[in-house]
């Protein structure tokens, strides 16, 4: 298996264990590959290790043993700041900087990277448009925006320096159903244009089959199985079956929309 060529996985977990200082294992023996341009969903209930898995990728957490490879390189060696600036990161609580305007929030990474002012201005315009926001919003502060608008800004901020990888931790979890539906739809059309490599954490099976190209099912710190949305719906795996029972009807159509 080759990992150093351009065709290799963009992200790879090799026998990764994550242990808390008190010895509890949050992640046991994880082996997982994320391919270029795919949307890999980490599906599981709270405490299953999906957020831990995500944070291991941008090295907000360090593996206790095993290796996490990003673009073929062990992310434990080398410059962690460089690594993170090349990875977009969107979290459920959005984490916008409340003291900065929308424009400054979005342009944070480009600014740190020392882009010229004109290029930053153009990029902010472009991103606001991309995530469906009026450019007048740029001068507002986060608390003046609705939850949906805030999360759009969060996505724009993550995309600012055009990273090839995007990590999303339940980005739509705190939104109302209608706004969530809207943002999921936009996510799909965005991904069709941008072809980012995305790792997306959720506990919502409907969201998983709609947005994912593959679903990695996690339970109690273990990876149970990795399946395509269609396979997942037909899976005989007892844990997958429990999800299907819990989410009930209408998943087929969600999955089909995701594939179209």
């Amino acid at each position, binding site marked *: 298996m080759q990992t150093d060529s351009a065709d290799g996985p963009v992200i790879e977990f090799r026998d990764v264990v994550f242990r808390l200082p008190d010895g509890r294992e949050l992640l046991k023996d994880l082996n997982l590959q994320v391919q270029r341009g795919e949307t890999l969903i980490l599906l599981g209930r709270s405490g299953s290790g999906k957020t831990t898995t995500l944070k291991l990728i*941008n090295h*907000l957490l360090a593996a206790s043993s095993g290796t996490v490879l990003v673009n073929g390189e062990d992310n434990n060696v080398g410059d962690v700041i460089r690594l*993170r*600036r090349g990875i977009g990161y969107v*979290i459920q*609580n959005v*984490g916008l*900087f*409340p*003291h900065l305007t929308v424009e400054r929030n979005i342009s944070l990474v480009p600014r740190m990277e020392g882009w010229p002012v004109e290029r930053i201005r153009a990029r902010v315009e472009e991103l606001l448009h991309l995530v469906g926001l009026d450019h007048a919003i740029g001068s507002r502060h986060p608390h003046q925006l609705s939850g949906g608008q805030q999360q759009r800004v969060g996505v724009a901020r993550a995309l600012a320096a055009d990273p090839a990888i995007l990590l999303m931790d339940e980005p739509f979890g705190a939104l109302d159903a209608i706004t969530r539906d809207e943002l999921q739809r936009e996510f799909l059309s965005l991904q069709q244009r941008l072809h980012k490599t995305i790792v997306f954490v959720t506990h919502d099976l409907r969201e998983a089959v709609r947005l994912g190209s593959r679903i990695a099912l996690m339970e109690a710190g273990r990876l149970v199985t990795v399946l395509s949305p269609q396979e997942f719906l037909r899976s005989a795996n007892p844990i997958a079956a429990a999800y299907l029972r819990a989410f009930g009807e209408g998943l087929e159509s969600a999955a089909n929309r995701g594939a179209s």
Partner: protein
Amino acid sequence: MNVAHFFLQHHEEILELTLEHLWLVGVSTLFAIVIGIPLGIVSAHWPVWNKPVLGTANVIQTIPSLALFGFLLPVPWIGARADRLAILALTLYALLPVIRNTYTGIRGVDPSVVEAGRGMGMTGSQLLFQVELPLAVSVILSGVRVAAVVSVGLATIAAAIGAGGLGEFIFRGLAMVNNQLILAGAIPAAVLALTADFCLGWLERRLQPR
């Protein structure tokens, strides 16, 4: 002779002692800011330092002020001049509110904001100066405000060791059982305290994020 008359007659001396007072309070508050904010940052970021730093500042706070002036008297260089000694003592007292509020302010920053910053590749100092301190600034300033107001009152005691300031009038008035003299010290001190409180409070509201 009424109080207003006394003030008019002694306005030069009152002004001089008020400026002296302001100098003692201003310099010591400045020192407390310069020392206290970094200590607050350290204890907020490295929990190991939290107890020793805040504990020490707490203990200093419990020493009666007159006794602290006395303790510092034999210290070389410091004890040689009364104003140095007074400034050191006032600085020590002002440290606790500054350290504690810096600590509280930084710990109070929404963890998801800090995590987002870290995840985006901000370095430790970028996080501190661009995120944590700007978001904590109004809490820190309210600590500075407490420190300054308390210092104005405490600095009157500095006159007991000959450091000057408005306490001179008060001690003189006490010795001579002269209420007008006491008021000549107390009223400008109260005005100073209120002014400091008002100005720093205004600044605090101005700098409040969101």
